[in-house]
């Protein structure tokens, strides 16, 4: 197993810095995701790893090898493309064996390894099919088999699920994760879907404007976002305005009668944003004494849970209700009592958002 390392990678497109001084280390055998909105530079970083794009500064290390100047065909890196990039004039088996044939491997071994790779993605019975006749999900699996069969040191995925419909997307990401666990191959995965990144990865780097905002395990990122951008990208949808009292170092909220202790303010001063995950806003069962009362402005039924938008004076808070409460007949204008888990709240300077 081999690790992958980016050191001071910068890539300029005209006046725009697509990648701006990125340092990242992907451990051997790790499933690592680059998560960010479109245009954040995550795909450019992936293409730099593949050798399809060349950095203006910095080095790419594959294990102990400096591969910065190597062309893609000499890197031994497998890549799964967003549109799969299957060769339309070749069959499934010809697509998968393409890389093996280039390596001058004996014919019988090519056939055996192609079959093995296709078995792994459960497509061995379609090996003589025309790739255009496959469904989107099958094409995606051919693309994975084609990248895996050459036994690359690192496997790269460029938004591989974005052309699939929702149910297939969830099933396929589970398959990809299982395959990676079985083969233990170092994997770098690009996505703009935070749920996908969090569910599939060992570690995630959140990329914004060509820079790394935060690197961590999915739960570190989710519960301890380091920046306001990471927090809002990962679903900290409740945002309250506040101000840091210069003397007492407390955080006073503008629209709710709450003062948070100095620990929250840290080194901040002036106007701030206080961020909360929807699950930190608790709806109190009827009859229990509540801290505040609001009215339901709208609700979204999502099966296992219901998402409520609750108005409290000037602000509207998102709350998630699960379990028995999700089965209640919610209605607009209904009065609900709420409680807030303030100790998990995050405070960030205001001017950034």
């Amino acid at each position, binding site marked *: 197993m081999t690790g992958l390392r980016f050191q001071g990678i910068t890539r300029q497109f005209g006046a725009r810095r697509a990648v701006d001084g990125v340092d990242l280390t992907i451990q051997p055998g790790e499933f690592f995701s680059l998560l960010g909105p479109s245009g954040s530079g995550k795909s450019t970083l992936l293409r730099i790893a593949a050798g399809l794009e060349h950095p203006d500064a910095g080095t790419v290390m594959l294990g102990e090898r400096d591969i910065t100047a190597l062309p893609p065909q000499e890197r031994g890196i497998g890549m799964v493309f*967003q549109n799969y990039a299957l060769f339309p004039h070749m069959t499934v088996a010809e697509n998968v064996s393409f*890389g093996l044939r280039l*390596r001058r491997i004996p014919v019988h071994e090519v056939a055996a390894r192609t079959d093995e790779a296709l078995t792994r993605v459960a497509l061995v019975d379609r090996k003589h099919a025309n790739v255009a006749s496959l469904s989107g999900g099958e094409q995606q699996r051919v693309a994975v088999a*084609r990248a895996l069969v050459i036994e690359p040191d690192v496997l790269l995925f460029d938004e591989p699920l974005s*052309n699939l419909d929702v149910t297939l997307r969830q099933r396929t990401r589970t398959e990809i994760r299982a395959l990676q666990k079985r083969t233990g191959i170092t994997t770098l995965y690009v996505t703009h879907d935070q749920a996908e990144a969090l569910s599939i990865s060992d570690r995630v780097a959140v990329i914004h404007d060509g820079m790394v905002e935060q690197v961590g395990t999915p739960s570190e990122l989710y519960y301890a976002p380091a920046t306001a951008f990471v927090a809002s990208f990962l679903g900290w949808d409740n945002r309250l305005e506040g101000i840091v009292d210069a003397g007492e170092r407390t955080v006073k909220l503008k629209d709710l009668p709450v003062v948070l202790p100095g620990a929250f303010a840290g080194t901040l001063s002036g106007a701030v944003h206080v961020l909360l995950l929807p699950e930190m806003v608790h709806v109190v069962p009827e009859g229990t004494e509540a801290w505040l009362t609001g009215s339901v402005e709208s609700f979204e039924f999502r099966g296992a849970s219901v998402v409520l938008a609750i108005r409290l004076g000037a602000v509207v808070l998102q709350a998630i209700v699960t379990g028995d409460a999700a089965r209640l007949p919610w209605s607009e204008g209904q009065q609900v009592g709420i409680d807030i888990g303030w100790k998990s709240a995050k405070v960030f300077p205001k001017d950034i958002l």
Partner: protein
Amino acid sequence: MNILRKVPAFVLLFFLVGYVAYPFAMMISRSLSVGGSLSFQRYLQLLDPSTQANLEAVVNSVGVSLLSVFTSAIVGTVLALVLTQLEFVGRGVLARLAILPIGLPPLVGAIAILLAFGESGVVPRLANEIGFWGIRMPGLSGFSGILVVHTYSFSVYFYLMVAAALREFDGAQLEAASTLGAGPWYVFRRILIPGLRPSLLGASTLTFMASMASFTAPLLFAGERRFLTLQIYFTKLNGDLDMAAAQSVLLAAVSVLFFIMARGMSGEHTGRAATKGVSRRAQIALPSSLRRVAVVISYALIGISMLPFLVILMLSFAKEGSWTWQILPQEYTLQNYFGFVSDPRVYEPVLNSTWMALVTMIVAGGVGLGIAWGVHRNRPGKVAGLIEVFLSAPYAFPGTVVAIALIQAFGGLTLTDSQWSMDNGLLMILGGTLVGTPWILLIAYVIRTYPLVLQPASAALAVLDPALPEAAASLGASRMRTFWSIILPAIRPAVLSGVLLAGIMAIGEFVASVLLYSFDTRPISVEIFSQLRVFNIGSAAAYSVVLLFLVLGMIAVLPDREIDRA
């Protein structure tokens, strides 16, 4: 009211049956009729090995056409690859110059090349005067001349089709191949070329058929060699119209055969991505030395192709008789251009060509658009495609064949039987003897050009959102109203570009004209040829320049926006 609405359809049908189907049927039936009864005698005579002339013509025509496909493919594909794959100074200008031949009257191109590179052309004279290491530069003649003219005129098919395919090519495929370990050359051979296969085959078909139909290049360069189109021309000049008809059928048959073969070879794969989604522009990673060589080659190719036009522009100012053995004409004058404003005998061909081109644009536009709309509305789907291919066929027929068919149909009453015959009856309905009148030229032009409108118009109709007319109807628009205010504006760029191409083709048409003209109706192209034949080089060059400016003028009239949209 209902009857009135059908009038355009009847007019269209009358034209198609009377002036397209009937002449071709007539040509075939005449070629098969000997002394009033059915006989294959003429065809047996054509293919008889003991009289070699026709067989030699077939072999020469097919041979030069195959070679033309080969040379055009190399030149056109190289230019397309260089001009789409590489960024360099002057790329935009080169890309514009590369498509010039599409609007260029074939006769002008051939004459320009003859005068620049022919046996007594400017360049060989110059080269032999300088004397590069004592090697004599022979100048183009025979096969080499025809091949150069064909490559010049037809490589643009490869250029356009390959460049279009490259723009649609899914670049991620090339990247995928390289991540799997393929070097640039391997990617080129195994991924890019297979993806371009449909375009290469399509362009090969077009080039082969155009080369088979080519008349001007053999006429100017063939010398003693025989070619099928020339053979038809000489047979007609000798007055054996029925034999000319048989030769025409043979020529059309060879073209169609090749067309069918190419259809059979083409697979359905293109380089387009198998799935939807973002696809990246195709880009092959080439070493920079190779890039530089490729750019230099493109500059050289396009530079050489521009040279003949400088030569023809210069010769248009040459005083007649002042260019005998010298490298360049010795005296220059504006005399060759004076006639265009003062002498009716000089400017008459210009007027003829202009008004006939304008009428052709209108009629071909109406016919092409009418067929496209009629087929689209009444027979959507698979059948529509077949009908369209069938109705576009006249474009594939060589101009010589069209002319012979029209002569056979409208040459005059059949004199063999004095009483009323079916042929004569039809002829009277369709306008009587048309040969010798401008109408015969106009019919030939329209037959040859309406597919140029039909093709883009039906392509535009095919991609038109079918919900558009439905939306218009739901808002209360009648079918007429929908056509005029919804359909027509949507397909206007396609129709306009087709009409423009029809006009360009008509104004410089030579192949059919030279068989159908009379002195009063002679178009520019025929006049150029007549002047050339009596060695009035300056005058022929001046006519060529005028024709070139007329074509450029037509292109300029159409706003860029419309061309871009088309």
